[in-house]
């Protein structure tokens, strides 16, 4: 009981609470700007934390993490440019929904789902931290391979209009992911002696090109025939969902949050994978109205709840085991060490109020998302009042900054340009840009896990089948891939029988 009282006192002291508010807002602003990642936002906060009490410092960084995870959806919905990599899946339905005049509703869904996901994962973190962290440690290459395959199998949902083209798109994405130095034996692959290609192709540049730049090209060609501006009547603001509307999608909220929490707990997975898997799972519903990809609210709720649920999930192995659950959690872990705390089993023993304090910070930041969301979206709303020729050129400039700032490299800007043109043609020929990104994100994980497991098995792949968790995951992946095909077959058979 003493620990709980101390935690509440630490988190809700005026200074700590003020820092949670500032952290959430700052995280959201950074998350919404392409080129300023959540990790970078936390790094920018670091110098201010040196003189703070460790609990207050961590609480502030956690709130930046929560704000950043949600902020990416704002530019994804309004500009079709994901502010953070985790927001890529939010584009698929968020942007079409905004285009159909439901900007406020789309933003409201994103903020509500983010808040729900954060709170859900915070409770899981509080209740089951040690047990979950131990379970996550049993994950080896075979399980990671299965997880990657589940992600890839979502293509049957992402490319519902043309499955074959979606499969080829994902294969192209995986091919692109093989560019650079092979991490298993250090062989240079497809880099052709270019130093910039040795580290591979960054998927953020590809994403900015294939989504934002290609969309600008598409809008320019349509501009004379229809107003492609994202105009809304009045001020752009977050429109919160009514409880009844939320209750109708309760299963999507829960599913997204569960997927996000689990993937967050698995070391080094992260929000991008979680949001894509959560989206893919929901998008299997072919009878949804409106269809997925055309502005279905569930297409925003699933990735956003998963993405933010990753925050609480990622804090589990970070605090309990000293193994970061996501790339952003790795930065927070470094911050732990800078301020003199060693993450791991001893952390909770030496700092008994830490877990409760992080839990309370997650809850507070999740609730503050509604206020921060209103502020940030109203600022972005000014952009939408611009006529498309101005807005389009601004999106290009913003995309360029986003691509350049990844590694301060001109190559990333070139990649953005190339994939802008490629993305335009892919769109025209009904290939799936989303599937290319999916392949690019998961390609590394799949190849490395596959080869590592074969090496562990001394040249044999039997380990994929003898490890129970791996087998379950692989069967799930196959079912995820086959389900739409089986569903179509059963529907046709049913229709034939009815005739």
């Amino acid at each position, binding site marked *: 009981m003493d620990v709980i009282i101390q935690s509440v006192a630490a988190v809700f002291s005026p200074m700590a609470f003020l820092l949670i508010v500032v952290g959430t807002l700052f995280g959201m602003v*950074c998350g919404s*700007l392409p*080129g*300023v990642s959540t990790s*970078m936002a936390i790094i*920018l906060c670091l110098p201010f934390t040196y003189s703070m009490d460790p609990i207050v410092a961590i609480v502030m960084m956690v709130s930046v993490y929560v704000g950043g995870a949600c902020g990416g959806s704002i530019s994804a919905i309004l500009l079709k440019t994901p502010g953070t990599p985790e927001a890529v899946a939010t584009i698929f339905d968020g942007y079409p929904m905004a285009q159909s005049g439901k900007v406020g509703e789309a933003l409201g869904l994103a903020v509500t789902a983010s808040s729900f996901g954060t709170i859900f994962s915070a409770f899981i973190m509080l209740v089951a931290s040690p047990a979950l962290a131990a379970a996550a440690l049993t994950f080896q290459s075979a399980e990671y391979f299965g997880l990657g395959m589940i992600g890839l199998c979502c293509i049957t949902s992402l490319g519902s209009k043309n499955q*074959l*083209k979606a*499969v*080829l798109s994902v*294969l*192209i994405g*995986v*091919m692109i992911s*093989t560019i650079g130095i092979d991490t298993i*034996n250090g*062989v240079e*692959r*497809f880099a052709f002696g270019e130093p910039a290609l040795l580290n591979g192709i960054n998927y953020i540049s590809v994403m900015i090109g294939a989504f934002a*730049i290609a969309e*600008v*090209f598409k809008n*320019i*060609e*349509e*501009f*004379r*025939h229809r107003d492609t501006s994202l105009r809304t009547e009045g001020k752009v603001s977050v429109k919160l969902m009514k409880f009844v509307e939320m209750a109708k999608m309760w299963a999507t909220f829960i599913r997204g949050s569960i997927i996000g929490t689990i993937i967050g707990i698995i070391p080094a997975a992260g929000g991008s994978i979680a949001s894509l898997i959560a989206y893919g799972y929901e998008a299997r519903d072919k009878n949804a109205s409106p269809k997925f990809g055309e502005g279905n609210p569930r297409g925003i709720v699933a990735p956003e709840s998963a993405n933010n649920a990753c925050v609480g999930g990622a804090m589990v192995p970070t605090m309990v085991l000293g193994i970061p659950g996501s790339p952003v959690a790795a930065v927070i872990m470094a911050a732990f060490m800078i301020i003199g705390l060693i993450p791991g089993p001893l952390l909770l023993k030496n700092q008994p109020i830490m877990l409760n304090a992080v839990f309370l910070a997650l809850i507070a930041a999740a609730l503050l998302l509604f206020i921060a969301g209103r502020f940030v979206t109203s600022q972005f709303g000014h952009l939408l009042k611009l*006529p*498309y*020729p*101005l807005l*389009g*050129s*601004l999106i*290009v*400039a913003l995309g*360029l*900054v986003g691509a*350049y*700032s990844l590694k*301060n490299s*001109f190559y990333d*800007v*070139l990649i953005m*340009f190339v994939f*802008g*043109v490629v993305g*335009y*043609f892919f769109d*025209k*020929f009904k290939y799936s840009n989303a599937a290319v990104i999916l392949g690019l994100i998961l390609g590394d994980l799949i*190849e490395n896990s*596959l*080869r590592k497991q*074969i*090496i562990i*098995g*001394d*040249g044999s792949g039997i380990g994929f089948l003898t490890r129970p968790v791996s087998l379950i995951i692989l069967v799930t992946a196959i079912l995820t891939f086959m389900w739409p095909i089986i569903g179509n077959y059963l529907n046709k058979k049913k229709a034939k029988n009815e005739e």
Partner: protein
Amino acid sequence: MGIEIVFNILVGLGIVFYLANALRLPTTDKPADVLGAGGFPIILGILGLIVLAMITMRVLKEKSEIHIPMLELHSVDGRMLAINVILLAAYIGLIDVIGFILSTLIYLVACPLSIGYRKAGVLTIFSVVATTILVVVFGVFFFVPLPRGINFFREFSYMIY
């Protein structure tokens, strides 16, 4: 249909190029790493060609027409789009020469003009304000090392960010 077949041939050539390079990758010195550096890319390349062949057969069967304005330079939309692609290429090409500030300023004027936007006053204010905001927010506030250009432009940028 013709244009899609050409597109598929280009994609096919790309995959063949990828596959040819994958086949040339050195074999592994670790006996347990049966796939080696080239194994996985070879699998991808072969699968890619099989799927592409299936897609092409379907295209030949369906014979649907696809309209690509970017390739129709005789139309206004096509020209507008082609000019914008060239403008973006020029923007990217110039950014490392004259720096972020000047190239962005020029692009933010040229791009709307090429799409047919003609309100000179609004365009001037927009390009100056947007460039200033981008430089201040990213270059000054978030310390993003924006491109600086060369010689004079480089020195000039150090005075601002």
